[in-house]
């Protein structure tokens, strides 16, 4: 976040800053915590994973002559006798975006050293994630009930089921891992580890609110991926 101050280093903006940072000694990402840099690079790698999934899906869907089921019907919900297209998915999207917002605020309050607020917001985020996973489980069981399997699909191309379960499953795993970590970090926040600089488990690094930002990066990334899945899987 905004330029830190470093003794003996004069920050320049834009591409000139880029050249200067790259040419400087010690660090390339000025003022960026090791853990945060690591999370960004990890997310870059993870982006490639999800891209490969989505590219495979595109290739698979594009080259099958069999009829691809219309997601807007497959994922419709019957509410009071009317079938509302994609209702559940829309709700899931809103839930995930909500949790992304609470996470962003948690980061903000973390940096303002507002322990309580930060902790509650992280918990809210975890709750959002949990709701999301729950709804996904519901959606899976609904489809399975209707006869969709990874290997077949009563509505048309069998790849529909394969890609659906694989991609949403992989994303869901990310969300679940996120929820676990959110809970742990919520505990650590409430316990004040970031105020006292207590060392984390398995690491030599002292606790700091920057860890909330790192966790936040991961969480926003999960949301980001969902944006793409929503567009390509449900709206195509």
């Amino acid at each position, binding site marked *: 976040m905004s330029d830190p101050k470093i003794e003996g280093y004069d920050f320049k903006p834009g591409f000139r800053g880029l050249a200067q940072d790259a040419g400087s000694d*010690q660090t390339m990402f000025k003022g960026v915590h090791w853990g945060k840099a690591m999370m960004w690079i990890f997310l870059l790698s993870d982006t490639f994973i999800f*891209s490969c999934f989505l590219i495979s899906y595109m290739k698979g869907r594009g*080259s099958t002559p069999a009829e691809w089921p219309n997601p807007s019907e497959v994922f419709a919900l019957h509410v009071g006798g009317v079938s509302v297209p994609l209702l559940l998915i829309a709700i899931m999207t809103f839930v995930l975006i909500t949790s992304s917002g609470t996470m962003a605020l948690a980061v903000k309050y973390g940096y303002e050293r507002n322990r309580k607020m930060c902790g509650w917001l992280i918990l809210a985020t975890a709750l959002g994630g949990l709701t999301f996973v729950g709804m996904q489980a519901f959606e899976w069981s609904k489809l399975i009930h209707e006869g969709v399997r990874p290997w077949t699909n009563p509505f048309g191309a069998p790849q529909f089921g*394969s890609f659906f379960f694989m991609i949403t499953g992989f994303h869901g795993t990310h969300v679940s891992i996120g929820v676990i970590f959110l809970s742990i970090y919520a505990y650590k926040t409430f316990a004040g580890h970031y105020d006292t600089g207590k060392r984390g488990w*398995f690491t030599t690094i002292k606790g700091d609110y920057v860890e909330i930002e790192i966790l936040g990066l991961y969480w926003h990334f999960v949301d980001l991926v969902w944006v793409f899945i929503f567009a390509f899987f449900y709206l195509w």
Partner: protein
Amino acid sequence: MSENYNDNKIIQAQSSETVSAGGSGATPDIDYVRPAEVLEQDLYHGHSFITKWVFCQDAKVIGIQYFLLATFTGIIGLILSWLMRLQLGYPELAGFMTAEHYYQFVTMHGMIMVVYFLTALFLGGFGNYLIPLMTGARDMVFPYVNMVSFWMFFVAVMVLMASFFVPGGPTGAGWTLYPPQAILEGTPGSGMGIILMLVSLVLFVIGFTMGGLNYLITVLQSRTRGMTLMRLPLSVWGIFTATILAMLAFPALLVGGLMLVLDTILGTSFFMPTILKAGEVLEYGGGSPILFQHLFWFFGHPEVYIVALPAFGIVSDLISVHARKNIFGYRMMVWAIVAIGGLSFFVWAHHMYVSGMNPWFGFFFASTTLIIAVPTAMKVYNWILTLWRGNIRMNVVMLWCLGFILTFVNGGITGLFLGNVTVDVPLSDTYFVIAHFHMVMGIAPLMVIMGAVYHWFPLVSGRMLSEKLGKWHFWVTFLGAYSIYFPMHYLGFIGVPRRYFEMYDSPYVTSAVGMNEFISMAAFLVGAAQFILIYNIIKSLKTGKLAGKNPWKANSLEWFTPTVPPEHGNWGNKLPIVYRWPYDYSVPGAKEDFIPQTTPPSKVSDTEVEKT
């Protein structure tokens, strides 16, 4: 647990120090280095045998662990290659070997050598050992994750080895693992074998990601004072860029592997079209085998540069040190590494010219493939121009470097044959390809590894390796390997396809029988020669000449630790400060023919030094 941390007591933070104590007449001006940006790193010091040597968090120990395990897998790969050559050269002697066995050997040989041997050795082994030392860091930035990375690799190797013992044996799908064949009966090991292979790869990727994040962040965020990117030794540049490639290429393998596992055990049809087997239509349908090939090569091509780039980097350093001359065109070398790395993501389908993909891709991929030759060529020129007017020590390390240049140029040029679509059509899937990639991957980077072992052994162990044994080792390996692979190209010209258990009596290949026998003989010899190295290492550990500090008179930081071999934490209680690039050899006006990176400018003010 926290009592195991040193809590900054032993190691004094020295961040407030702005000017190093230069010698007499030091002017603060020219010796000025920015104060430390980041605080000292706390390290976890192990107390018991387990925390010191087994679950150790010291990058140097982890590097050695990687090195030893990778060498172990390499020897397995070597033995498999012997078995293959036995079949190819003397089919009548290898009567016990069935086609199933042969294909299992080929597959495991290829996969082990590329992934578990070379990748692990270069990035895990040399990366761990050299990066912190060469960048002037105390350790990797996340030592704990680094330790887990090695043990993931260990588990991956164990899973791989386990596949030799499951019913049906290891997979025999070829190291490219192309479906549908990889998971159908008719291919050896299509049951458990392939599943274990894929699981092992997934574990490897996960483990590697942990290590890779460490290498990247260490290079990017924890260099010592004065160490700019353009002052890094090329070894670090090579390993660093290769790691970036790995971080971005392994995802494709992971995804492809995952989908293949699902096809195998769940019966999905990602890669499986309608298939008729033994008169029955299987329960697959609609998938696309070519998709897997794209995923595999989107990983696979960067992968071959993952093993090439560290070799490029390390060999540059070795040549420079032993030619007593700065590396010629350092900036160009760095940009070439980066350019090769970047371009390698745009050439993958040159492995698929005859795979039945969209034929128009040929134009695009042939062009990008040949463009890569330009930065690579610049590197070759710069290596030989470094020798030009150097002061070349003709020791074992230099021999390996020269051997590398010769074999790499040879193999690179055969790469140009293959890269040029039309020429690839007749040569693809023949022994020409085998010869190409053994020359450029099996031999060239291996020469660098050997050179690097001779070069850094004194640092790791404090003793020198025997030169005499080394020379034997080199000449047998170099001449032997060259005579394996140079003639092999001509088998490809005749038209002998790769992955052939036996040629039978195809009318036009009978003449190749003699050559195959010769190649096999050379292969046995070369393989056996590697045991000279192992003997040399074991012997020299005990009785080798004591190396002392900096026996090669090198400039780069790793030779300037307070103790040799370096201890945990590398730098004692004071981090080094870097004032120059690592290639100030034979500087006019300087007393000695090298100026270490830690020498402040005020000490050598009467010399004409490159500004870096």
